[in-house]
């Protein structure tokens, strides 16, 4: 009985506690990311943005949460009820479950699995199901069109994201996310004789891939300028037209969780994860989670600025960019990176 307790019960309790802690922190973080998104957008357009609920509108997201939860969920008469309600659940569950393998600092990870990056890639490729199911189950024209667009878009951009990940993996030689960050301790900067710094991270050595990954991440998460599934001037709100109250909120939550994940993934793959920008004692003293959050927020700031600045793409241009520009470019970079690593003997 004693061994049963020490083998199953105690580790189980620890794991549940860790997951809950991560989940709560993540949800609060997402609430403020959402507010930041609206505030940045407003600032670019010389508006104030949400500023009524709490000081500087800091509690706006929580007020929105309460509003959504207390509204009545409306299910259209022609909808396929089970699938209609399952779709937002799938979207939010998948988006949150990817966070299990994300290392927030050295050793701060719930599941440090060998195929971490593949796990993230796999689960985020499943997020399209929430959208397709929602669009189909609504039994209405605009949601269905939005769902079709979204599915085609996500499948197209996954291909180039996959190749970008392959280039990073070639440089690292491991699929483990912690290994990927640790491999950025030395790189281009240390080869030139500089001390360990931000020049070692992959963003410099693989700069074209960094750009491709950032843009593909925008498309993959349906962020503007690639938010065609919910282009309000054409499709009202795309696959979310028929949704209201809590199910709608879950779709939004899933979307922002996916956006945060893409920010974290950019940080891990290209911006050195929890590593400090320069290897000096005062920066090393700052805990890794702070660097990780700062870098992720920087990436999110770029996401928000792109949303504010760039006009929406036309659908055929989006497909052209994905298949005719990014796919050949990332494929070529995989081959070039492999050759360089082999010829220079770095692999």
């Amino acid at each position, binding site marked *: 009985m004693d061994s049963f307790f020490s083998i199953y019960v105690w580790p189980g309790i620890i794991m549940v506690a860790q997951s809950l802690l991560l989940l709560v922190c993540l949800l609060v973080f997402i609430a403020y990311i959402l507010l930041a998104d609206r505030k940045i957008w407003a600032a670019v357009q010389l508006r104030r943005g949400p500023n009524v609920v709490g000081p500087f509108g800091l509690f706006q997201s929580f007020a929105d949460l309460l509003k959504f939860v207390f509204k009545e969920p409306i299910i259209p008469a022609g909808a396929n009820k089970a699938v209609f309600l399952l779709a937002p659940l799938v979207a939010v569950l998948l988006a949150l479950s990817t966070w299990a393998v994300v290392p927030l600092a050295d050793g701060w990870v719930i599941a440090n699995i*060998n195929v971490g990056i*593949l796990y993230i890639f796999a689960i985020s490729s499943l997020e399209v199901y929430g959208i*397709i*199911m929602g669009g189909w189950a609504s039994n209405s024209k605009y949601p269905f069109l939005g769902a079709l667009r979204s*599915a085609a878009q996500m*499948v197209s951009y*996954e291909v180039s994201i996959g190749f970008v990940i392959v280039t990073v993996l070639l440089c690292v030689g491991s699929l483990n996310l912690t290994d990927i960050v640790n491999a950025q301790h030395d790189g281009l900067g240390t080869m030139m004789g500089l001390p360990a710094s931000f020049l070692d991270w992959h963003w410099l050595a693989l700069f074209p891939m960094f750009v491709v990954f950032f843009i593909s991440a925008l498309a993959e998460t349906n962020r503007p300028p690639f938010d065609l599934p919910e282009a309000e001037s054409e499709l009202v709100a795309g696959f979310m037209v028929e949704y209201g109250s809590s199910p709608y909120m879950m779709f939004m939550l899933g979307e922002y969780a996916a956006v945060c994940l893409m920010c974290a993934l950019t940080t891990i793959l290209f911006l050195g994860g929890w590593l400090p920008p320069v290897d000096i004692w005062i920066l090393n003293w700052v805990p890794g989670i702070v660097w990780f959050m700062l870098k992720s927020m920087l990436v999110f700031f770029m996401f928000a600025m792109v949303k504010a600045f760039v006009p929406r793409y036309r659908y055929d241009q989006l497909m052209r960019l994905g298949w005719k520009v990014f796919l050949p470019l990332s494929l070529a970079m995989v081959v070039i990176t492999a050759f360089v690593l082999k010829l220079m003997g770095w692999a």
Partner: protein
Amino acid sequence: MGLQAIFFYLFAFIAVASAFMVISAKNPVHSVLFLILVFFNAAGLFLLTGAEFLAMILLVVYIGAVAVLFLFVVMMLDIDFAELRSGVLQYAPIGMLVGLIVAAELVVVIGGSVLTPEAAKAVTMPIPNPASRTNTAALGDVLYTNYVYFFQIAGLVLLVAMIGAIVLTLRHRTHIKRQDISAQVARTPATAVEVVKVKPGQGV
């Protein structure tokens, strides 16, 4: 017995139950969704055997790509499934035949390993120690060094299939206006604007 066994029975039960639902669900879209659940649980079973790479590839390829296309096709097709279902019993003998053949093959494989256990041990490739090697690296070694020519031939076969599909569906329509982005970018005032002297009262 332990967590492994519990999870095995969980995944196996859900996989078999949803496989049954695939063929018995009234709505074809529900069938595809149950099929996705089968794939998902199969990935779970792969994980239990320690084949983590295969499990993730199953998720990426089958659920993330193949099943999405499947779902697309089923949603877009306008098929009267009540009519399709009416004659389903006349195919029952063929279905049973296929089932019997698969069952017989399974019996041969399992029976062979039970009757002659030494035959199963005589593997052609030495299996690396799983503790020292991740199965991603082990698979990569086997696929890209030992069987590299077969791998390339498989790639060529797929390439031919892809070219075939493109040739079959490619149509060159002449009356269509296409966007040529390089031509648009290369436009200058000199090529795009013509300055005309217009006499008063005559127009262009």
